[in-house]
């Protein structure tokens, strides 16, 4: 009996739940502006989420998935990317999408039931929101494969949840990415729940990071409420991938403070007490405590930021609500590059009907 392979899963954290620094200090701390950018992006995300939920409650938006409490994961992931990189998000990554330049109006259009919401004016190559869980992991592998084949120093980053790690296609994408040493970073936002299924009943694996072991790539855990650690660890993985070092899987340990979506009532399956306890770990207060402690952030800064965010969100909502739906015939517009002759009578019938 000999040992032929051994694997270790490490866990990273920089800020404890009180915003105090722990462990070795990451390079990132030398860039206070970067930290403040992270902070601003998280706060904007939370404002946006709150407004979106309110819009849904009042019948002005469809089902919406808030990222409450998980803002750090998506924001830090996006912050680790260069503009020419490609983000392949899940359905709970408005934080990262906003940072990448997707507009709030676009996000609202999408969740409001309008395809134009995925025609991002900003990051033209980013993938749209992916609803069928995990099915975007193969896309991310394809994008990263394109970068590799063209010899471009670009990286794809794919975000998904703890539930997605049980999907076979996610495994297949990770396995292929490792095999081809693709410039691709997988970040799993382990918010502890997949609708009503808790992390412990998703897999017997001690960590989700070790899914990487089966796929043949490095994997690690990060405190998902610690924007600094996330930004640091994801950033290192992104730059390693960019320079040919291959893919990695990063498990961010966060918590879903909200219902799964506006269509969900989490009290059916989880204790409020659990949620209350987790509020103490949430990422925004934590980073603020750190910044305030370092005198990099003041009460006035905070007030101004909140006012700014509210104004931005409100303006976006106004534009969204003012936007008329597309004409019904638009459902034929981008079905194919050129609508095949066989389909024209259908479009004509629809247009005839809706014009009359």
């Amino acid at each position, binding site marked *: 009996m000999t040992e032929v392979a051994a694997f270790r899963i490490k866990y990273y954290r920089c800020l404890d739940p009180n915003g105090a620094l722990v462990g070795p200090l990451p390079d990132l701390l030398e860039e206070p502006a970067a930290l403040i950018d992270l902070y601003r992006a998280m706060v904007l995300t939370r404002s946006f989420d709150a407004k979106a939920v309110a819009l849904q409650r009042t019948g002005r938006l*469809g*089902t919406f998935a808030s990222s409450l409490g998980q803002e750090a994961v998506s924001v830090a992931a996006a912050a680790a990317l260069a503009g020419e990189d490609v983000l392949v998000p899940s*359905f709970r990554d408005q934080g990262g999408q906003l940072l990448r330049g997707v507009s709030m109006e676009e996000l609202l259009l*999408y*969740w*409001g*039931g*309008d*395809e134009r919401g995925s025609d991002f004016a900003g990051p033209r190559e980013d993938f749209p*929101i992916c*609803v*069928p*869980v*995990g099915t975007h992991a193969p896309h991310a592998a394809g994008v990263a494969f394109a970068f590799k084949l063209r010899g471009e120093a670009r990286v794809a980053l794919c975000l998904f949840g703890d*539930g*997605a790690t*049980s*999907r*076979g*296609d996610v495994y297949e994408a990770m396995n292929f990415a490792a095999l081809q040493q693709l410039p691709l970073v997988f970040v799993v936002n382990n918010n502890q729940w*997949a*609708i*009503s*299924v808790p992390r412990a*009943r*998703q*897999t017997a694996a001690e960590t989700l990071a070790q899914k990487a072991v089966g796929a043949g790539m490095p994997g690690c855990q990060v405190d998902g409420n610690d924007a600094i650690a996330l930004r640091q660890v994801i950033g290192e993985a992104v730059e390693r991938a960019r320079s040919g070092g291959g893919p990695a899987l990063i498990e961010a340990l966060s918590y879903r403070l909200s219902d799964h979506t506006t*269509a*969900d009532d989490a009290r*059916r*399956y989880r204790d409020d007490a659990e949620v209350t306890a987790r509020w103490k770990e949430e990422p925004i207060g934590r980073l603020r405590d750190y910044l305030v402690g370092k005198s990099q952030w003041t009460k006035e800064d905070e007030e101004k930021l909140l006012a700014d965010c509210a104004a931005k969100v409100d303006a976006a909502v106004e534009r969204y609500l003012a936007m008329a*739906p*597309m004409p*019904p015939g*638009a*459902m*034929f517009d981008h*079905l194919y590059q050129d609508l095949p002759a066989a*389909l024209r009578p*259908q*479009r004509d019938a*629809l247009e005839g*009907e*809706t014009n009359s």
Partner: protein
Amino acid sequence: MNALTLVEAVRLALARALADDEQVLVLGEDVGLDGGVFRATEGLLERFGKDRVVDTPLSESLFVGLAVGLGAQGFRPVVEYQFMGFIYPAIDQVLNHAARLRNRTRGRLTCPIVVRAPYGAGIHAPEHHSESMEALFAAIPGIRVVIPSSPAKAYGLLLAAIRDPDPVVFLEPKRLYRVAKETVDDDGESLPLDRCFRLREGDDVTLVSWGASTKETLAAAERLAGDGIEATVIDVATLKPMDMETILASVEQTGRCVIVHEAPLSGGVGGEIAAGLADRGLVHLLAPVRRVAGYDTVVPLARLEAHYMPSEARIIEEVRKVMAYQ
């Protein structure tokens, strides 16, 4: 006796089947404590325990294969896919295994499983939550495909599906989950899996539909009756194998047929019905067989979905066209 919604009737049938037969299991995402995202399994965990009502990980390629193994061992698993939009990874197991196990082992191993999923548009749901792709299953030999159109039918057909010794794909019109109540007697009586239902009688034209579209079809029929056009409305209900005889018998009387389904026109199950008419019903046809269906497009997101689904107005228009033939 009880006035129930369609989703409540589904739940009642599941409870009944679980109570009657200890081989019955319910599996799927969030079917336990949460009771399913539409509450179709609400209370079942509490009543039957976690060995009978099993929350699964998020592994859609697995469930039907798992059910195949359970079924071969004598269980009768009822697997829920949360939405039809997430059922496609199961087609491999349905087609390559569930549909074939009895045949390929000459009856040694069997596959008494049910695969449930809500389908269809009209509830302002997110992307990928609104498709009607029953045609994918209706093309697979060796299975049954069933779609109920009312609470009582949901109860009786689901019981039949669970008791059936072969694999059944059971698709539920989620747009109808809560729109209307119907008296459903929990008498454990199943409905036949090889017969259409005649929902309405009329001599002038035969309207054929199933699932959610029966609603607009019936409404259209009522409206047309006001103008003196009396329609027979047939709910196909069991799309595979299909009871073409009932449809043919009706068209033999009326000579006219309009088929209504929410799925995209091309490749939809309506084509199979029209083909049956073009063959065995041809001599009786007085007018072209028309189909009112979803367009051959991606189902648009919520803002436009109402324009996608066959409307009462479109059905009426087609019936009028068909009536115009002498």
